[in-house]
């Protein structure tokens, strides 16, 4: 058996034009940079990072709303650690916490539910950010809260679904994409068949893969082979975890609690049907409704290229702020904060500043 890198080099020689593949999962982005994979690819094969980091695609007005909530003395904001340092218009949850706001890091939505049980005099607001991987766990927490008739548990919901974003990227045609490396974790829930419409509508190959560097190399090899052979199919490199149909229990839970809605993706704009909002039956747990949250357009640093970077149209090195004004300890855009952000991965593993 040949090593994947040799096979990739062999297939790349048969290409008639350079190709660009996009990964749309933050964990893939991180794994690729962490293993130094980009430097090992032939010059006519490029790997782009797409909008795969849930924190990065969250509209900054959401962060401002969360900060606003955290300022209320009777509210505890419960969040995954990733959101803590993301800058809003004027501050971050981390800075607000240092100034006395009640912000707690939790590791799952059910921890937030436990917190609500333990602090009956406080309203606990969980920040629901994430793709199909996180959404079912939040749906589960909400359904449990309903069973318990919990009155002090809320979710500020900004969940999103990936296939619609991939559709929007291809539809917009702003960047040429010759194949998708599809997210392993998301696909465990949705199933590999979720991407078939991309192959059919746009004639673009998709490969679902895992998170070891070898998985990503295999996916690139499989995509190259499809391109060379003129195929556009969904292939599953990650069959050890991902099935064709996904996880029906998780899918049912999501459908029970959430319904699709249009939602704004930072840097991309509104993508129809790509958001999940809490259904009317569960509206009493929806922080936006029950606590009357208003989202005000946020002020962001106009030089920050996060939005463009997330569409694959620029690399972090194209950004004037990267490695200078913007670094993990003093982040300006979300891509520099999240452990899955492209800029953070680039800064951490590749170079310190643009040449």
């Amino acid at each position, binding site marked *: 058996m040949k090593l994947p*890198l040799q096979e990739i080099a062999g297939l790349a020689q048969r290409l008639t034009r350079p190709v660009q593949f996009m990964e749309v*999962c*933050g*964990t893939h982005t991180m794994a690729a*940079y*962490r*293993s*130094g*994979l*980009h*430097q*090992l690819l032939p010059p006519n094969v490029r790997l782009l990072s797409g909008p795969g980091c*849930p*924190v990065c695609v969250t509209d900054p007005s959401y962060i401002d709303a969360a900060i606003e909530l955290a300022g209320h003395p009777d509210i505890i904001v419960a969040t*995954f*650690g*990733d*959101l*803590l*340092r993301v800058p809003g218009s004027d501050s971050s949850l*981390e*800075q607000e916490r*240092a*100034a006395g706001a009640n912000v707690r*890091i*939790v*590791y799952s939505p059910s*921890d937030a539910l436990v917190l609500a049980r333990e602090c009956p005099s406080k309203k606990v607001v969980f920040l629901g*950010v*994430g*793709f199909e*991987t*996180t959404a079912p766990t939040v749906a589960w927490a909400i359904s449990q809260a309903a069973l318990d008739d919990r009155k002090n548990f809320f979710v500020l919901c900004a969940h999103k679904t990936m296939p619609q974003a991939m559709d929007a990227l291809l539809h917009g045609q702003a960047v040429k994409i010759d194949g998708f490396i599809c997210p392993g*974790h998301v696909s465990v829930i949705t199933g590999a068949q979720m991407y078939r419409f991309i192959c059919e509508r746009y004639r673009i190959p998709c490969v679902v893969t895992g998170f070891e*560097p*070898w998985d990503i*190399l295999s996916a690139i090899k499989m995509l190259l082979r499809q391109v060379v052979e003129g195929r556009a199919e969904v292939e599953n490199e990650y069959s050890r975890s991902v099935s064709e149909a996904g996880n029906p229990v998780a899918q049912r839970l999501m459908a029970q609690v959430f319904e699709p809605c249009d939602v704004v993706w930072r840097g991309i704009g509104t993508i129809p049907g790509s958001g999940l909002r809490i259904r009317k039956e569960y509206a009493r747990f929806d922080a936006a409704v029950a606590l009357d949250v208003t989202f005000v357009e946020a002020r962001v640093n106009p030089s920050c290229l996060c939005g463009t970077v997330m569409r694959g149209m620029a690399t972090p090195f194209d950004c004037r702020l990267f490695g200078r004004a913007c670094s*993990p*300890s*003093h982040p300006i855009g979300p891509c520099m904060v*999240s*452990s*899955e952000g492209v800029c953070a991965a680039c*800064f*951490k*593993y*590749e*170079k*310190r500043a643009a040449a």
Partner: protein
Amino acid sequence: MNRHRILLAHGGGGSLTQELIQRLFVPAFKMSSLDDAAVLAVDRVRLAFTTDSYVVKPYVFPGGDIGRLAVCGTVNDLAVQGAQPLWLSLSFILEEGLPVADLESIVASIATTASEAGVTIVTGDTKVVERGQCEGLYINTAGIGRVAGRRSVSHAGAKPGDVVLINGPIGEHGVAVMSRRAGIEFQTSVVSDSAPVWPLVKAILDLGAEVHTLRDPTRGGVAAALNDIATASGVGIRLEEKALPIGREVRGACDLLGLDPLTIANEGKLLVICRQADAERVLATMKRQPLGRQAVVIGEVMETPKAMVLLRTTIGGERIVDMPTGEDLPRIC
């Protein structure tokens, strides 16, 4: 410092801690050396002096407790300066309501660890604060040791061509503590590696080998320690990912929490940087010590790129091992 308040990350041992030290403490106290312990000459004897505070949460964890840590952390800061630890001070800040039984067991653990480390507790202090003002108890220890050899080991001593060794698997202390932290709790058989490293250091120094730098990779892990060394010595360091000793469970826990084992704290590990020609016998000596049985070579020191730590990955790529920023943030998704 363009922030108005201290963040938790300022205490994380990463770049924000560095910023605090460089911009506030160094100019205010006109400090020159920033090693783990100060080396002070008294008459003709050279003494090493250091202090450290312990706020670990929870205060009992698999493989140890805050008491064991308060001894090991401080004596190891002396040991990596090439000093034999001799005396310790011990100050308690106790929270009103702390069960006396807990304090008794921590004191017993301090006594056992002190005798294991060959140090005497010679002075101390006790304060009690109102309930809620600290979590159970905090401990501060200061330590004095006698610098053993004539040649000093400093973290600015690494030279191009040197070899980097470590005495065993990394990340165990941090993972053991995290496994018991409220909200994360997971089942693991990983226990803290906290142990006094002086016997290992002494064996290495007694060899007479050309050892340029010793370091205990505590907060911020191997990544922070090697970045410090690379910066202070004006060299680059390249690690081999394949050579890094990382246990299966530590790797699994880190994958789950989105953390890099290289940034996880150790409390009984020793990084040794020595001349390449001496590497083999240093390694052999380490392997003969109880704390060094799993010692391995993990990398080398290079001329360039200066002040940087690189890692050759298992697929043959290369990446930066950066100074961690501070408080590690478990990922979402």
